[in-house]
């Protein structure tokens, strides 16, 4: 024991270090953000004018410039859209709503069937392949299996698009088939898409 009195130090001033764990990591582990409060995550804010059946212009990504129909907001915060596929080649797809330019034009919301409500974020999850061993990969058939688009998804696309196509008139179809571009004299800051 330490003869505290002998050292001239008050016993209350002494702190004894005790090892709490056997192993300490060299650097602090990074923890994912955790809310301190018990508040639940807020639902995605609805954008004004973004309703089922509204024509949106895609601003970035593979389909930039395409005019697509908005179906619904998914719980992940992404927007579910469709071309329709037969009109402009845009399938059922999730898109970041920040990159959708909402226009005033709207297809009859009745044409958006309840089928759209059945589609969730899980629908778009990548199918997990069975884990292959290294050797198997080496001897794998180089003429790889052709990636077949799942027929169930094709069917789903058809089910959702069919009532929409029935409602679209030829001019509307042409409109959706045409990409949006800026032309001479068009000033983006002066163009009206929605009179809010």
């Amino acid at each position, binding site marked *: 024991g330490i003869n505290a009195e002998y050292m001239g130090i008050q016993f209350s001033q002494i702190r004894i270090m005790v090892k709490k764990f056997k192993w300490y990591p060299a650097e602090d582990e990074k923890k994912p953000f955790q809310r301190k409060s018990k508040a639940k995550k807020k639902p995605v804010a609805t954008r004004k004018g973004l309703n089922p059946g509204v024509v949106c212009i895609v601003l970035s990504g593979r389909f930039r410039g395409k*005019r697509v129909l908005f179906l619904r907001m998914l719980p992940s915060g992404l927007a579910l859209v469709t071309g329709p596929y037969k009109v402009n080649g845009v399938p059922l797809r999730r898109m970041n709503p920040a990159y959708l330019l909402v226009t005033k034009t709207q297809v009859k919301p009745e044409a958006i069937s309840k089928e759209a409500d059945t589609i969730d974020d899980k629908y778009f999850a990548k199918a997990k392949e069975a884990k292959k061993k290294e050797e198997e990969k080496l001897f794998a058939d180089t003429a790889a299996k052709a990636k077949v688009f799942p027929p169930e998804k094709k069917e789903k696309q058809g089910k959702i698009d069919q009532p929409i196509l029935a409602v679209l008139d030829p001019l509307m179809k042409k409109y959706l088939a045409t990409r949006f571009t800026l032309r001479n004299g068009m000033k983006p800051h002066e163009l009206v898409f929605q009179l809010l």
Partner: protein
Amino acid sequence: MCIRDRVSTQSTWDINYIREFMGFKRFVQAGRVAYINYGVDHGKVCVIVEVINSTRVLVDGPTLGVPRQVISLRRLALTDHLLKVAKGIHTKSLEAEIKKADLVKKIGESSWAKKLAAQKRRAELNDFERFQVMMLKRQKAYLVNKDVAQAHSKGAKKAKKAAKPKEAKSSQQP
């Protein structure tokens, strides 16, 4: 006897002299209807009530939404319309004059007002409407070009016909 005969006796500031010799038709005068190009009342129409100096005028537009104010001539565009009013007319009297002359209707009928309305409409077009306009322009161009092509071919045919008998004549000669 036209004004040119009276040139030597006319003052160079006579309005009719200016009109004849210098080609100016619209004058800054009491009663001149002007369009406001700039400022708070931009886009509105008013009546010049009094001329203050070479740059400023007193202006008023009772039923036209323009308060009585001094405005720079640089902010005005003169129109063809002229009300017969004395300079310095009061707002109430001016209102009666505007109503009598049916100014609002007359201005609305002018091609320049129609152009402004068209410009405004064009600026308000939404994306689908712009697409429709583009389709209609294409259709119109197609029809016009079709007619032009027909006219060209007719002209070409005529030229051919005229050339043929000439050829026939020239071939017969030797």
